[in-house]
């Protein structure tokens, strides 16, 4: 067993904490988003759904709480999709030749970048959860301290696997692209459909059939399922829609994310094995 991937991890985290501006921005961005978009939308949605009735004894959650899970998911998506960009810069202007010419197996580069990206996503998710509590997101209703800790672990598990998948994808794209402009274009192209064809900010029940099917194959939907299950519960009403998650549903979502991450690793591995940078 060799541990060179820890070196890649070390170096990427070093850069992360060194760039204070990038660090602070990456933490403020989801908070800002939740504060502005959440505040704006939640008043709209509560007006729209004011006529809808929730059965007695059922749990109804506010839109802010509903979308809090979505914000965790979307932030993880954006951060992870751009997580590999450092490889493109390394390739064009920096360390990549040094790394590729070293005896270190190349999959260590992918794994190292993956782990540092996951760490960043963990930090962001924790910040969002903490900030959410401040502005009125009601996560973990009636949970004991132990249950809360368990729920947070569950959320991070989902976030971690999801994040790895997109970091591997991002690494593969970065390694293939010639310019940052090209990378930006491809990632934007990917982001928007993933974003809109998901249940992050609104329910998918009302989607047209085709979009609904697509959203079932969207890793973002599966991440949001997991986060909502752990953060809100397995049976609740939001925006007039009844959400029920069985343990099976959640396991399937988790499995889908694992399959996705594994597939993306293979893609990235292939790209790195054959990569020629001179």
């Amino acid at each position: 067993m060799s541990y060179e991937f820890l070196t890649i991890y070390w170096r990427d985290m070093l850069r992360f904490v060194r760039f204070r501006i990038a660090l602070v921005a990456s933490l403020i961005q989801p908070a800002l988003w939740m504060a502005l978009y959440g505040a704006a939308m939640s008043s709209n949605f509560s007006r729209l759904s004011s006529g809808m009735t929730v059965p007695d004894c059922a749990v109804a959650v506010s839109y802010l709480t509903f979308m809090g899970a979505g914000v965790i998911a979307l932030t993880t998506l954006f951060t992870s999709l751009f997580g590999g960009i450092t490889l493109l810069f390394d390739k064009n202007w920096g360390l990549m030749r040094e790394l590729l010419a070293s005896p270190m197996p190349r999959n260590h580069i992918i794994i190292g970048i993956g782990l540092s990206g996951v760490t960043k996503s963990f930090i962001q998710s924790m910040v969002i959860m903490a900030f959410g509590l401040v502005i009125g997101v009601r996560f973990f209703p009636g949970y004991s301290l132990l249950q809360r800790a368990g729920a947070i672990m569950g959320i991070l598990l989902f976030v971690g696997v999801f994040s790895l998948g997109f970091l591997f994808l991002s690494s593969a794209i970065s390694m293939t692209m010639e310019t940052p402009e090209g990378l930006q274009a491809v990632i934007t192209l990917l982001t928007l459909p993933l974003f809109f064809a998901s249940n992050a900010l609104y329910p998918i029940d009302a989607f047209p059939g085709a979009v609904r099917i697509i959203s079932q194959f969207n890793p973002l939907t599966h991440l949001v399922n997991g986060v909502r299950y752990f953060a809100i519960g397995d049976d609740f009403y939001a925006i007039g829609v009844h959400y029920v998650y069985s343990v099976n549903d959640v396991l399937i979502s988790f499995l889908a994310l694992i399959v996705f991450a594994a597939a993306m690793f293979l893609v990235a591995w292939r790209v790195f094995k054959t990569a020629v940078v001179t």
Partner: protein
Amino acid sequence: MSENIIEVDGLEYSYGNFKAVDGVSFSVREGEIFSFLGPNGAGKSTVINILTTLLPLQKGSASIAGFDLAKEPEQVRRSIGIVFQDETLDRDLTVWETLELHGRIYSMPKVERRQRIDEIIKLVELQEKGDVRTRYLSGGMKRRLEIGRGLMTRPQVLFLDEPTIGLDTQTRRRLWDYIKMVNDSGTTIFLTTHYMDEADLVSNWIEIVDFGKIIASGTPLRLKDALGRDVIYLQTDNDDAATGIIKALKAVLNIKATSQGLVVTINADGTRCLPIVMSRLRESGIEIKSVNLKKPTLDDVFVHYTGRDIRNAGAEKLPRIQPRGGR
């Protein structure tokens, strides 16, 4: 056999239809400074990229430090150090971190690694700069750091791809001092450059390469002597008489009278010929006012073998894809 640390046989490499390296064979002896000399685009970097395992071996065979490039690339990587042509530093890591990273990806144990970092920083005289990010280093310091990094793992061969490109004369001279020092301590140096004068000064052996082929090889001295074209410049009080006397000498190929004096081209070693010329002139009562001897440079060697100047050769990069007639 055992004293050759690099063996290359029949190396070929093509980018699509374009053959960048066209059947190159050579060997490098342990402990020498070996230079690959040629204009930009001659195929030097392609060869160095193949030998450092950054490009796959398409055709031919090569071994470094006894390891086969095709079968044992990892051992090859562990035996070599590389200073790339372009800067390959993370600008936001410090000098110390740059070396630490290198030691770690080459799996150096911590104690040895830390000790070696101290040694290297001293060797390349960056003691004051250990905690400085590489973006704030001057061009020469960056190069020194990269050379130091290449030496971290005590490689048997250090590859230097155009190490002095873009640096000023003083910095270049200092870098060569380092490189010679490294070589003196036993590391074989594989060098590519298009600066003829630098290669001339430091190399034990030179291969001149053009259009992906080796066109001449030898020690710098032998390459230049093989041309046999030393030039003597003379100023006398009677050029006409002097011309007659010098013409009679067997070694003289050509003599020209210019406003600056006489220009004599000879096909023998000028250092031996010049005293004879001078004594003959004195015997005839001709006074010599000044004398100068010019040995051919590697530039002359290059022009001789390729028919063009190395400085202009790079400009022919594009047309070379067409067949080369007449050479």
